Protein backbone atom coordinates (compact mmCIF):
# COMPACT_ATOMS: atom_id res chain seq x y z
CA UNK A 1 0.00 0.00 0.00
CA UNK A 2 1.32 3.40 -0.92
CA UNK A 3 1.41 4.68 2.61
CA UNK A 4 3.35 7.74 1.53
CA UNK A 5 0.33 9.18 -0.25
CA UNK A 6 -2.08 11.44 1.65
CA UNK A 7 -5.48 10.17 2.68
CA UNK A 8 -8.12 11.47 0.32
CA UNK A 9 -11.31 9.89 1.63
CA UNK A 10 -12.01 8.56 5.09
CA UNK A 11 -15.24 7.11 6.47
CA UNK A 12 -16.28 7.05 10.12
CA UNK A 13 -18.94 4.57 11.24
CA UNK A 14 -20.81 4.78 7.97
CA UNK A 15 -24.15 2.98 7.91
CA UNK A 16 -26.85 2.93 5.24
CA UNK A 17 -30.50 2.19 5.97
CA UNK A 18 -33.26 1.31 3.54
CA UNK A 19 -36.23 2.17 5.69
CA UNK A 20 -35.45 0.40 8.96
CA UNK A 21 -33.25 -2.26 7.39
CA UNK A 22 -29.53 -1.61 7.67
CA UNK A 23 -27.77 -2.54 4.47
CA UNK A 24 -24.33 -1.37 5.58
CA UNK A 25 -23.02 -1.04 9.16
CA UNK A 26 -20.10 0.77 10.79
CA UNK A 27 -17.73 1.06 7.90
CA UNK A 28 -14.43 2.66 8.85
CA UNK A 29 -12.00 2.81 6.00
CA UNK A 30 -9.68 5.26 4.31
CA UNK A 31 -8.52 5.60 0.73
CA UNK A 32 -5.28 7.29 -0.22
CA UNK A 33 -4.79 9.75 -3.02
CA UNK A 34 -4.03 8.39 -6.53
CA UNK A 35 -4.74 4.76 -5.76
CA UNK A 36 -7.19 2.19 -7.10
CA UNK A 37 -9.34 0.68 -4.37
CA UNK A 38 -11.50 -2.37 -4.96
CA UNK A 39 -14.66 -3.22 -3.03
CA UNK A 40 -15.43 -6.92 -3.32
CA UNK A 41 -17.95 -9.34 -1.86
CA UNK A 42 -20.90 -11.51 -2.83
CA UNK A 43 -24.15 -10.05 -4.22
CA UNK A 44 -26.12 -8.14 -1.64
CA UNK A 45 -23.11 -7.60 0.63
CA UNK A 46 -23.52 -3.82 0.58
CA UNK A 47 -20.52 -2.84 -1.53
CA UNK A 48 -22.55 -0.91 -4.09
CA UNK A 49 -24.71 0.55 -1.34
CA UNK A 50 -21.57 1.81 0.37
CA UNK A 51 -20.19 3.18 -2.91
CA UNK A 52 -23.36 5.16 -3.57
CA UNK A 53 -23.21 6.64 -0.09
CA UNK A 54 -19.92 8.30 -0.98
CA UNK A 55 -21.39 10.70 -3.56
CA UNK A 56 -24.78 10.99 -1.82
CA UNK A 57 -26.64 9.16 -4.60
CA UNK A 58 -28.89 7.56 -2.01
CA UNK A 59 -30.67 10.84 -1.48
CA UNK A 60 -32.49 10.21 -4.75
CA UNK A 61 -34.17 7.13 -3.28
CA UNK A 62 -36.96 7.84 -0.79
CA UNK A 63 -36.61 6.33 2.71
CA UNK A 64 -32.88 5.83 2.46
CA UNK A 65 -30.67 7.20 5.23
CA UNK A 66 -26.93 7.41 5.65
CA UNK A 67 -25.31 7.71 9.09
CA UNK A 68 -21.72 8.40 10.11
CA UNK A 69 -19.20 10.63 8.40
CA UNK A 70 -17.55 10.52 5.00
CA UNK A 71 -14.61 12.90 5.03
CA UNK A 72 -13.37 14.13 1.67
CA UNK A 73 -10.11 16.03 2.24
CA UNK A 74 -11.12 16.48 5.85
CA UNK A 75 -14.62 17.79 5.15
CA UNK A 76 -17.74 15.70 5.81
CA UNK A 77 -19.65 15.35 2.53
CA UNK A 78 -22.81 15.00 4.64
CA UNK A 79 -22.08 18.21 6.55
CA UNK A 80 -25.04 20.54 6.99
CA UNK A 81 -23.38 23.28 4.95
CA UNK A 82 -22.43 20.98 2.06
CA UNK A 83 -24.45 20.98 -1.14
CA UNK A 84 -24.92 17.46 -2.57
CA UNK A 85 -24.64 18.91 -6.08
CA UNK A 86 -21.18 20.13 -5.16
CA UNK A 87 -20.25 16.73 -3.72
CA UNK A 88 -21.24 14.99 -6.94
CA UNK A 89 -19.14 17.39 -8.97
CA UNK A 90 -16.08 16.51 -6.89
CA UNK A 91 -16.84 12.78 -6.79
CA UNK A 92 -17.53 11.36 -10.25
CA UNK A 93 -19.30 8.10 -10.98
CA UNK A 94 -19.29 5.46 -13.69
CA UNK A 95 -22.18 3.02 -13.69
CA UNK A 96 -22.59 -0.68 -14.28
CA UNK A 97 -24.41 -0.21 -17.56
CA UNK A 98 -22.95 2.36 -19.96
CA UNK A 99 -25.37 5.30 -19.86
CA UNK A 100 -24.32 8.01 -22.30
CA UNK A 101 -27.03 10.56 -23.05
CA UNK A 102 -28.45 9.03 -26.24
CA UNK A 103 -29.65 12.28 -27.81
CA UNK A 104 -26.34 14.09 -27.29
CA UNK A 105 -23.28 13.93 -29.51
CA UNK A 106 -20.05 12.40 -28.26
CA UNK A 107 -18.73 15.93 -27.77
CA UNK A 108 -21.79 17.08 -25.82
CA UNK A 109 -21.72 13.96 -23.67
CA UNK A 110 -18.15 14.65 -22.59
CA UNK A 111 -18.75 18.30 -21.71
CA UNK A 112 -22.18 17.75 -20.12
CA UNK A 113 -20.81 18.12 -16.60
CA UNK A 114 -18.77 21.17 -17.52
CA UNK A 115 -21.77 22.83 -19.12
CA UNK A 116 -23.81 22.10 -16.00
CA UNK A 117 -21.13 23.90 -14.05
CA UNK A 118 -21.61 26.91 -16.32
CA UNK A 119 -18.53 26.64 -18.53
CA UNK A 120 -19.14 28.37 -21.87
CA UNK A 121 -15.69 28.98 -23.35
CA UNK A 122 -15.42 27.04 -26.60
CA UNK A 123 -11.66 26.78 -26.25
CA UNK A 124 -11.94 25.31 -22.77
CA UNK A 125 -14.66 22.88 -23.87
CA UNK A 126 -12.64 21.74 -26.90
CA UNK A 127 -9.57 21.22 -24.74
CA UNK A 128 -11.56 19.26 -22.19
CA UNK A 129 -13.07 17.00 -24.83
CA UNK A 130 -9.67 16.04 -26.17
CA UNK A 131 -8.06 15.68 -22.73
CA UNK A 132 -10.92 13.59 -21.34
CA UNK A 133 -11.25 11.36 -24.38
CA UNK A 134 -7.49 10.80 -24.38
CA UNK A 135 -7.72 10.09 -20.67
CA UNK A 136 -10.35 7.47 -21.37
CA UNK A 137 -8.34 6.02 -24.29
CA UNK A 138 -11.14 6.81 -26.71
CA UNK A 139 -9.77 9.84 -28.58
CA UNK A 140 -8.20 8.02 -31.50
CA UNK A 141 -11.36 6.05 -32.17
CA UNK A 142 -13.80 8.97 -32.15
CA UNK A 143 -11.82 12.12 -32.98
CA UNK A 144 -13.24 12.20 -36.52
CA UNK A 145 -16.84 11.86 -35.46
CA UNK A 146 -17.29 13.92 -32.33
CA UNK A 147 -20.66 15.10 -33.62
CA UNK A 148 -22.05 11.57 -33.88
CA UNK A 149 -24.48 10.52 -31.16
CA UNK A 150 -22.95 8.74 -28.20
CA UNK A 151 -25.22 5.74 -28.56
CA UNK A 152 -23.71 4.96 -31.99
CA UNK A 153 -20.61 3.59 -30.23
CA UNK A 154 -20.03 -0.01 -29.18
CA UNK A 155 -20.70 -1.01 -25.57
CA UNK A 156 -17.06 -0.79 -24.54
CA UNK A 157 -16.66 2.56 -26.26
CA UNK A 158 -19.83 3.83 -24.59
CA UNK A 159 -18.41 2.92 -21.20
CA UNK A 160 -15.16 4.71 -21.99
CA UNK A 161 -17.26 7.69 -23.13
CA UNK A 162 -18.92 7.61 -19.70
CA UNK A 163 -15.48 7.54 -18.10
CA UNK A 164 -14.47 10.54 -20.24
CA UNK A 165 -17.66 12.31 -19.21
CA UNK A 166 -16.81 11.74 -15.55
CA UNK A 167 -13.17 12.80 -16.06
CA UNK A 168 -14.14 16.04 -17.78
CA UNK A 169 -15.01 17.74 -14.51
CA UNK A 170 -11.69 16.62 -12.99
CA UNK A 171 -13.17 14.72 -10.06
CA UNK A 172 -11.08 14.16 -6.96
CA UNK A 173 -12.58 10.70 -6.60
CA UNK A 174 -13.94 8.45 -9.34
CA UNK A 175 -16.47 5.85 -8.22
CA UNK A 176 -16.91 2.87 -10.55
CA UNK A 177 -19.80 0.50 -9.97
CA UNK A 178 -18.90 -2.77 -11.71
CA UNK A 179 -17.90 -0.81 -14.82
CA UNK A 180 -17.01 -3.85 -16.90
CA UNK A 181 -19.73 -6.30 -15.95
CA UNK A 182 -21.77 -5.48 -19.07
CA UNK A 183 -18.76 -5.63 -21.38
CA UNK A 184 -16.96 -8.26 -23.42
CA UNK A 185 -13.48 -9.46 -22.31
CA UNK A 186 -11.61 -7.25 -24.76
CA UNK A 187 -13.43 -4.08 -23.68
CA UNK A 188 -12.92 -5.13 -20.07
CA UNK A 189 -9.20 -5.44 -20.70
CA UNK A 190 -9.04 -1.93 -22.17
CA UNK A 191 -10.79 -0.42 -19.16
CA UNK A 192 -8.55 -2.29 -16.74
CA UNK A 193 -5.50 -1.00 -18.62
CA UNK A 194 -6.99 2.45 -18.39
CA UNK A 195 -7.23 2.45 -14.63
CA UNK A 196 -3.50 2.39 -14.18
CA UNK A 197 -3.20 5.71 -16.03
CA UNK A 198 -6.39 7.17 -14.51
CA UNK A 199 -4.97 6.97 -11.02
CA UNK A 200 -2.32 9.50 -12.02
CA UNK A 201 -5.10 12.10 -12.09
CA UNK A 202 -7.70 10.85 -9.62
CA UNK A 203 -8.48 8.36 -6.89
CA UNK A 204 -10.54 5.36 -7.92
CA UNK A 205 -12.94 3.30 -5.84
CA UNK A 206 -14.26 0.38 -7.85
CA UNK A 207 -16.92 -2.17 -7.00
CA UNK A 208 -16.26 -5.44 -8.75
CA UNK A 209 -17.69 -8.91 -8.78
CA UNK A 210 -14.61 -10.20 -10.43
CA UNK A 211 -11.84 -11.08 -7.98
CA UNK A 212 -9.21 -11.44 -10.70
CA UNK A 213 -10.06 -7.91 -11.71
CA UNK A 214 -9.67 -6.68 -8.16
CA UNK A 215 -6.28 -8.35 -7.83
CA UNK A 216 -5.12 -7.07 -11.22
CA UNK A 217 -6.07 -3.42 -10.94
CA UNK A 218 -6.26 -2.38 -7.31
CA UNK A 219 -3.84 -1.16 -4.67
CA UNK A 220 -6.20 -1.88 -1.78
CA UNK A 221 -9.09 -4.29 -1.42
CA UNK A 222 -12.05 -4.11 0.94
CA UNK A 223 -14.11 -7.24 1.47
CA UNK A 224 -17.77 -6.78 2.38
CA UNK A 225 -20.12 -9.44 3.72
CA UNK A 226 -23.79 -8.95 4.64
CA UNK A 227 -23.35 -5.25 5.29
CA UNK A 228 -20.07 -5.44 7.22
CA UNK A 229 -16.62 -4.47 6.10
CA UNK A 230 -14.80 -7.68 7.00
CA UNK A 231 -11.33 -6.86 5.85
CA UNK A 232 -9.48 -3.95 4.29
CA UNK A 233 -5.84 -3.84 3.32
CA UNK A 234 -3.26 -3.86 0.55
CA UNK A 235 -4.59 -6.00 -2.27
CA UNK A 236 -1.60 -8.32 -2.20
CA UNK A 237 -2.02 -8.96 1.51
CA UNK A 238 -5.79 -9.47 1.31
CA UNK A 239 -5.45 -11.99 -1.49
CA UNK A 240 -2.37 -13.83 -0.29
CA UNK A 241 -2.56 -13.68 3.46
CA UNK A 242 -6.13 -12.79 4.42
CA UNK A 243 -6.55 -12.17 8.13
CA UNK A 244 -10.19 -13.21 8.35
CA UNK A 245 -11.24 -16.73 7.51
CA UNK A 246 -14.39 -15.45 5.78
CA UNK A 247 -12.21 -13.44 3.40
CA UNK A 248 -10.13 -16.48 2.71
CA UNK A 249 -13.23 -18.58 2.07
CA UNK A 250 -14.54 -16.00 -0.39
CA UNK A 251 -11.38 -15.41 -2.37
CA UNK A 252 -10.61 -19.08 -2.63
CA UNK A 253 -14.07 -19.53 -4.11
CA UNK A 254 -15.71 -21.49 -1.34
CA UNK A 255 -18.79 -19.25 -1.53
CA UNK A 256 -20.01 -16.20 -3.38
Amino acid at each position, binding site marked *: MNTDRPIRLQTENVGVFYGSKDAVRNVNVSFRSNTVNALIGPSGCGKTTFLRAINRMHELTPNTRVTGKIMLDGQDVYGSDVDP*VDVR*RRIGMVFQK*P*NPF*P*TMSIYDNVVA*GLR*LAGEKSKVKLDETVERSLRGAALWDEVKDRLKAVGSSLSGGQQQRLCIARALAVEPEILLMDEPTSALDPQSTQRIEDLMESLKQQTTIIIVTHNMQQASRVSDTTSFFLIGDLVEHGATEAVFQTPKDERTEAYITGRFG
Partner: protein
Amino acid sequence: MKATIPQPRRGSGSRADARFQAVIVALASIVLVTALAYSVVLLLNGASAFGREGLGFVFGSNWDPANGHFQAFPFIAGTFFTAIGALVIAVPLALAASLFIAEYAPDWLANPVAYLIELLAAIPSVVYGLWGIFVLIPATLPFQKWLASSLGWSAPIGPGLFSAMLLLAVMIIPFIAAISRDVIKLVPNDQREAAFALGATKWEVIRYAVLPYARAGILGGVILGLGRAIGETLAVTMVIGNANRFPQNLLSPTATMSSIIASNFGEASSPEFVSSLIGIGFVLLVVALVVNFLARIVIARLTPQGTV
Protein backbone atom coordinates in the same frame (compact mmCIF):
# COMPACT_ATOMS: atom_id res chain seq x y z
CA MET B 1 -27.60 -41.06 -34.60
CA LYS B 2 -30.81 -39.86 -36.11
CA ALA B 3 -32.09 -36.61 -34.72
CA THR B 4 -35.66 -36.75 -33.54
CA ILE B 5 -37.08 -33.33 -34.16
CA PRO B 6 -40.79 -33.17 -33.40
CA GLN B 7 -42.68 -32.45 -36.63
CA PRO B 8 -45.57 -30.00 -36.71
CA ARG B 9 -48.81 -31.93 -36.75
CA ARG B 10 -50.31 -32.10 -40.22
CA GLY B 11 -53.94 -32.48 -41.16
CA SER B 12 -56.73 -30.85 -39.24
CA GLY B 13 -54.32 -28.51 -37.44
CA SER B 14 -52.95 -26.88 -40.55
CA ARG B 15 -56.40 -26.65 -42.15
CA ALA B 16 -57.63 -24.83 -39.07
CA ASP B 17 -54.65 -22.52 -39.42
CA ALA B 18 -55.55 -21.71 -43.01
CA ARG B 19 -59.17 -21.02 -42.09
CA PHE B 20 -58.12 -18.77 -39.23
CA GLN B 21 -55.80 -16.87 -41.51
CA ALA B 22 -58.55 -16.39 -44.07
CA VAL B 23 -60.88 -14.96 -41.42
CA ILE B 24 -58.18 -12.59 -40.12
CA VAL B 25 -57.35 -11.37 -43.61
CA ALA B 26 -61.03 -10.82 -44.37
CA LEU B 27 -61.60 -8.84 -41.19
CA ALA B 28 -58.50 -6.73 -41.75
CA SER B 29 -59.57 -6.07 -45.33
CA ILE B 30 -62.91 -4.70 -44.18
CA VAL B 31 -61.08 -1.95 -42.28
CA LEU B 32 -58.90 -1.09 -45.24
CA VAL B 33 -61.71 -1.19 -47.77
CA THR B 34 -63.91 0.98 -45.57
CA ALA B 35 -61.21 3.61 -45.17
CA LEU B 36 -60.52 3.59 -48.88
CA ALA B 37 -64.22 3.67 -49.73
CA TYR B 38 -65.01 6.70 -47.66
CA SER B 39 -62.01 8.59 -48.98
CA VAL B 40 -63.24 7.86 -52.50
CA VAL B 41 -66.83 8.77 -51.67
CA LEU B 42 -65.71 12.05 -50.09
CA LEU B 43 -63.60 12.83 -53.13
CA LEU B 44 -66.27 11.92 -55.67
CA ASN B 45 -69.07 13.78 -53.92
CA GLY B 46 -66.86 16.76 -53.18
CA ALA B 47 -65.36 16.78 -56.65
CA SER B 48 -67.97 19.09 -58.12
CA ALA B 49 -67.07 21.71 -55.48
CA PHE B 50 -63.46 21.59 -56.64
CA GLY B 51 -64.68 21.58 -60.24
CA ARG B 52 -66.73 24.75 -59.81
CA GLU B 53 -64.32 26.77 -57.71
CA GLY B 54 -61.00 25.25 -58.73
CA LEU B 55 -58.17 26.24 -56.38
CA GLY B 56 -60.47 28.97 -55.13
CA PHE B 57 -62.27 26.30 -53.13
CA VAL B 58 -59.22 25.96 -50.94
CA PHE B 59 -57.67 29.42 -51.27
CA GLY B 60 -60.69 31.71 -51.78
CA SER B 61 -62.62 33.38 -48.99
CA ASN B 62 -66.03 34.02 -50.52
CA TRP B 63 -68.50 31.71 -48.76
CA ASP B 64 -71.97 32.88 -49.67
CA PRO B 65 -74.46 30.00 -49.98
CA ALA B 66 -77.34 32.32 -50.86
CA ASN B 67 -75.53 33.39 -54.01
CA GLY B 68 -73.90 30.05 -54.72
CA HIS B 69 -70.34 30.93 -53.69
CA PHE B 70 -68.50 28.23 -51.80
CA GLN B 71 -64.88 29.04 -51.02
CA ALA B 72 -63.58 27.36 -47.88
CA PHE B 73 -60.33 29.09 -47.00
CA PRO B 74 -61.71 30.82 -43.87
CA PHE B 75 -62.61 27.46 -42.38
CA ILE B 76 -59.31 25.84 -43.28
CA ALA B 77 -57.61 28.79 -41.61
CA GLY B 78 -60.01 28.55 -38.67
CA THR B 79 -59.08 24.92 -38.13
CA PHE B 80 -55.38 25.74 -38.15
CA PHE B 81 -55.76 28.78 -35.91
CA THR B 82 -57.84 26.98 -33.29
CA ALA B 83 -55.65 23.88 -33.32
CA ILE B 84 -52.34 25.75 -33.12
CA GLY B 85 -53.71 28.16 -30.52
CA ALA B 86 -54.95 25.24 -28.44
CA LEU B 87 -51.52 23.59 -28.65
CA VAL B 88 -49.74 26.77 -27.59
CA ILE B 89 -51.92 26.94 -24.48
CA ALA B 90 -52.10 23.20 -23.76
CA VAL B 91 -48.54 21.98 -24.28
CA PRO B 92 -46.84 23.94 -21.48
CA LEU B 93 -49.65 23.13 -19.05
CA ALA B 94 -49.76 19.46 -19.98
CA LEU B 95 -45.98 19.13 -19.80
CA ALA B 96 -45.90 20.82 -16.42
CA ALA B 97 -48.64 18.50 -15.17
CA SER B 98 -46.86 15.40 -16.45
CA LEU B 99 -43.54 16.45 -14.91
CA PHE B 100 -45.25 17.15 -11.63
CA ILE B 101 -46.88 13.73 -11.61
CA ALA B 102 -43.88 11.76 -12.86
CA GLU B 103 -40.96 13.55 -11.17
CA TYR B 104 -42.08 15.70 -8.27
CA ALA B 105 -45.28 14.54 -6.59
CA PRO B 106 -45.18 11.79 -3.98
CA ASP B 107 -47.18 8.69 -4.93
CA TRP B 108 -50.15 9.45 -2.70
CA LEU B 109 -50.64 12.70 -4.62
CA ALA B 110 -49.41 11.68 -8.07
CA ASN B 111 -51.81 8.77 -8.56
CA PRO B 112 -55.05 10.64 -7.85
CA VAL B 113 -53.93 13.65 -9.91
CA ALA B 114 -53.00 11.40 -12.83
CA TYR B 115 -56.35 9.65 -12.54
CA LEU B 116 -58.26 12.94 -12.53
CA ILE B 117 -56.41 14.18 -15.60
CA GLU B 118 -57.21 10.97 -17.45
CA LEU B 119 -60.82 11.32 -16.37
CA LEU B 120 -60.95 14.65 -18.23
CA ALA B 121 -60.38 12.73 -21.45
CA ALA B 122 -63.55 10.72 -20.88
CA ILE B 123 -65.91 13.72 -20.71
CA PRO B 124 -68.18 13.84 -23.81
CA SER B 125 -67.43 16.81 -26.01
CA VAL B 126 -71.01 18.12 -25.82
CA VAL B 127 -70.47 18.49 -22.07
CA TYR B 128 -67.29 20.44 -22.75
CA GLY B 129 -69.31 22.58 -25.13
CA LEU B 130 -71.91 23.35 -22.47
CA TRP B 131 -69.18 24.10 -19.97
CA GLY B 132 -67.63 26.41 -22.55
CA ILE B 133 -70.86 28.31 -23.03
CA PHE B 134 -71.92 28.55 -19.41
CA VAL B 135 -68.61 28.75 -17.56
CA LEU B 136 -65.60 29.41 -19.75
CA ILE B 137 -67.02 32.21 -21.88
CA PRO B 138 -68.62 34.18 -19.00
CA ALA B 139 -65.44 33.76 -16.98
CA THR B 140 -63.13 35.01 -19.72
CA LEU B 141 -65.40 37.70 -21.14
CA PRO B 142 -64.01 40.46 -18.91
CA PHE B 143 -60.50 39.58 -20.08
CA GLN B 144 -61.66 39.47 -23.70
CA LYS B 145 -63.27 42.90 -23.32
CA TRP B 146 -60.19 44.32 -21.72
CA LEU B 147 -57.99 42.89 -24.47
CA ALA B 148 -60.25 44.22 -27.21
CA SER B 149 -60.45 47.71 -25.75
CA SER B 150 -56.71 47.96 -25.15
CA LEU B 151 -55.94 46.83 -28.70
CA GLY B 152 -58.73 48.84 -30.30
CA TRP B 153 -60.64 45.81 -31.58
CA SER B 154 -64.41 45.68 -31.90
CA ALA B 155 -66.19 44.54 -28.74
CA PRO B 156 -66.14 40.75 -28.36
CA ILE B 157 -69.38 38.83 -27.96
CA GLY B 158 -67.84 35.87 -26.15
CA PRO B 159 -68.06 33.02 -28.63
CA GLY B 160 -65.19 33.22 -31.08
CA LEU B 161 -61.73 32.07 -32.04
CA PHE B 162 -60.22 32.66 -28.60
CA SER B 163 -62.96 30.81 -26.74
CA ALA B 164 -62.58 27.86 -29.12
CA MET B 165 -58.80 27.78 -28.61
CA LEU B 166 -59.21 27.84 -24.86
CA LEU B 167 -61.83 25.12 -24.79
CA LEU B 168 -59.85 22.93 -27.17
CA ALA B 169 -56.78 23.41 -24.99
CA VAL B 170 -58.67 22.12 -21.96
CA MET B 171 -59.89 19.17 -24.02
CA ILE B 172 -56.48 18.09 -25.30
CA ILE B 173 -54.48 18.62 -22.10
CA PRO B 174 -55.43 15.17 -20.74
CA PHE B 175 -54.15 13.42 -23.88
CA ILE B 176 -50.85 15.23 -23.95
CA ALA B 177 -50.35 15.01 -20.19
CA ALA B 178 -51.17 11.29 -19.96
CA ILE B 179 -48.84 10.31 -22.79
CA SER B 180 -46.06 12.62 -21.60
CA ARG B 181 -46.31 11.20 -18.09
CA ASP B 182 -46.04 7.67 -19.44
CA VAL B 183 -42.98 8.37 -21.58
CA ILE B 184 -41.30 10.35 -18.80
CA LYS B 185 -41.80 7.42 -16.46
CA LEU B 186 -40.22 5.16 -19.09
CA VAL B 187 -36.97 7.15 -19.13
CA PRO B 188 -34.44 4.69 -17.65
CA ASN B 189 -33.33 5.62 -14.17
CA ASP B 190 -29.69 5.29 -15.19
CA GLN B 191 -30.17 8.35 -17.39
CA ARG B 192 -31.27 10.38 -14.38
CA GLU B 193 -28.42 9.01 -12.30
CA ALA B 194 -25.92 9.87 -15.03
CA ALA B 195 -26.95 13.50 -14.83
CA PHE B 196 -27.17 13.55 -11.03
CA ALA B 197 -23.69 12.06 -10.77
CA LEU B 198 -22.35 14.94 -12.86
CA GLY B 199 -23.67 17.42 -10.34
CA ALA B 200 -26.99 18.26 -11.96
CA THR B 201 -29.82 19.69 -9.89
CA LYS B 202 -33.27 18.13 -10.13
CA TRP B 203 -34.34 20.63 -12.79
CA GLU B 204 -31.12 20.12 -14.75
CA VAL B 205 -31.65 16.36 -14.68
CA ILE B 206 -35.08 16.90 -16.20
CA ARG B 207 -33.77 19.32 -18.76
CA TYR B 208 -30.64 17.46 -19.85
CA ALA B 209 -31.52 13.82 -19.30
CA VAL B 210 -35.28 13.27 -18.97
CA LEU B 211 -36.85 15.60 -21.54
CA PRO B 212 -34.38 14.88 -24.36
CA TYR B 213 -34.82 11.15 -23.85
CA ALA B 214 -38.60 11.47 -23.78
CA ARG B 215 -38.95 14.07 -26.51
CA ALA B 216 -40.13 11.74 -29.27
CA GLY B 217 -42.86 10.28 -27.07
CA ILE B 218 -43.92 13.70 -25.81
CA LEU B 219 -44.16 14.89 -29.39
CA GLY B 220 -46.30 11.85 -30.12
CA GLY B 221 -48.68 13.01 -27.39
CA VAL B 222 -48.68 16.54 -28.81
CA ILE B 223 -49.52 15.21 -32.27
CA LEU B 224 -52.36 13.16 -30.84
CA GLY B 225 -53.64 16.33 -29.18
CA LEU B 226 -53.25 18.22 -32.45
CA GLY B 227 -55.21 15.55 -34.29
CA ARG B 228 -57.96 15.78 -31.73
CA ALA B 229 -57.97 19.59 -31.94
CA ILE B 230 -58.18 19.52 -35.74
CA GLY B 231 -61.06 17.08 -35.78
CA GLU B 232 -63.03 18.21 -32.72
CA THR B 233 -66.44 19.33 -33.90
CA LEU B 234 -69.25 19.65 -31.44
CA ALA B 235 -67.61 21.60 -28.64
CA VAL B 236 -65.97 23.95 -31.14
CA THR B 237 -69.24 24.51 -32.97
CA MET B 238 -70.82 25.49 -29.66
CA VAL B 239 -68.30 28.19 -28.75
CA ILE B 240 -66.74 29.51 -31.95
CA GLY B 241 -69.62 31.77 -33.00
CA ASN B 242 -70.14 30.16 -36.43
CA ALA B 243 -69.50 33.19 -38.59
CA ASN B 244 -68.82 32.19 -42.19
CA ARG B 245 -65.82 34.43 -42.63
CA PHE B 246 -62.18 34.89 -41.88
CA PRO B 247 -61.76 36.14 -38.29
CA GLN B 248 -60.91 39.85 -38.00
CA ASN B 249 -59.03 39.30 -34.78
CA LEU B 250 -58.34 36.77 -32.05
CA LEU B 251 -61.71 37.33 -30.42
CA SER B 252 -64.07 37.40 -33.38
CA PRO B 253 -66.52 34.65 -34.26
CA THR B 254 -65.46 32.41 -37.12
CA ALA B 255 -65.73 28.72 -38.06
CA THR B 256 -63.58 25.68 -38.62
CA MET B 257 -63.83 22.97 -41.26
CA SER B 258 -65.58 20.63 -38.88
CA SER B 259 -67.85 23.27 -37.34
CA ILE B 260 -69.04 24.55 -40.72
CA ILE B 261 -69.99 21.03 -41.74
CA ALA B 262 -71.78 20.34 -38.49
CA SER B 263 -73.66 23.63 -38.40
CA ASN B 264 -74.70 23.66 -42.07
CA PHE B 265 -75.36 20.10 -43.10
CA GLY B 266 -78.99 20.16 -42.02
CA GLU B 267 -79.78 23.24 -44.09
CA ALA B 268 -77.67 22.51 -47.11
CA SER B 269 -80.38 22.85 -49.75
CA SER B 270 -78.60 22.85 -53.07
CA PRO B 271 -76.41 20.08 -54.47
CA GLU B 272 -73.60 22.68 -54.73
CA PHE B 273 -73.87 23.38 -51.02
CA VAL B 274 -73.82 19.67 -50.14
CA SER B 275 -70.87 18.91 -52.37
CA SER B 276 -68.97 21.88 -50.94
CA LEU B 277 -69.46 20.57 -47.41
CA ILE B 278 -68.31 17.11 -48.47
CA GLY B 279 -65.37 18.71 -50.24
CA ILE B 280 -64.44 20.39 -46.95
CA GLY B 281 -64.67 16.97 -45.33
CA PHE B 282 -62.20 15.67 -47.87
CA VAL B 283 -59.77 18.52 -47.18
CA LEU B 284 -60.09 17.80 -43.45
CA LEU B 285 -59.23 14.15 -44.08
CA VAL B 286 -56.18 15.11 -46.12
CA VAL B 287 -55.00 17.56 -43.42
CA ALA B 288 -55.36 14.87 -40.76
CA LEU B 289 -53.41 12.35 -42.86
CA VAL B 290 -50.62 14.83 -43.60
CA VAL B 291 -50.30 15.77 -39.92
CA ASN B 292 -50.05 12.11 -38.97
CA PHE B 293 -47.54 11.38 -41.69
CA LEU B 294 -45.29 14.29 -40.75
CA ALA B 295 -45.57 13.32 -37.10
CA ARG B 296 -44.31 9.82 -37.82
CA ILE B 297 -41.27 11.17 -39.62
CA VAL B 298 -40.44 13.62 -36.84
CA ILE B 299 -40.95 11.02 -34.11
CA ALA B 300 -38.74 8.51 -35.88
CA ARG B 301 -35.98 11.09 -36.17
CA LEU B 302 -36.19 12.14 -32.53
CA THR B 303 -36.33 8.67 -31.00
CA PRO B 304 -33.06 7.98 -29.17
CA GLN B 305 -31.11 5.06 -30.55
CA GLY B 306 -30.81 2.25 -28.06
CA THR B 307 -27.93 2.22 -25.65
CA VAL B 308 -26.31 -1.03 -24.59
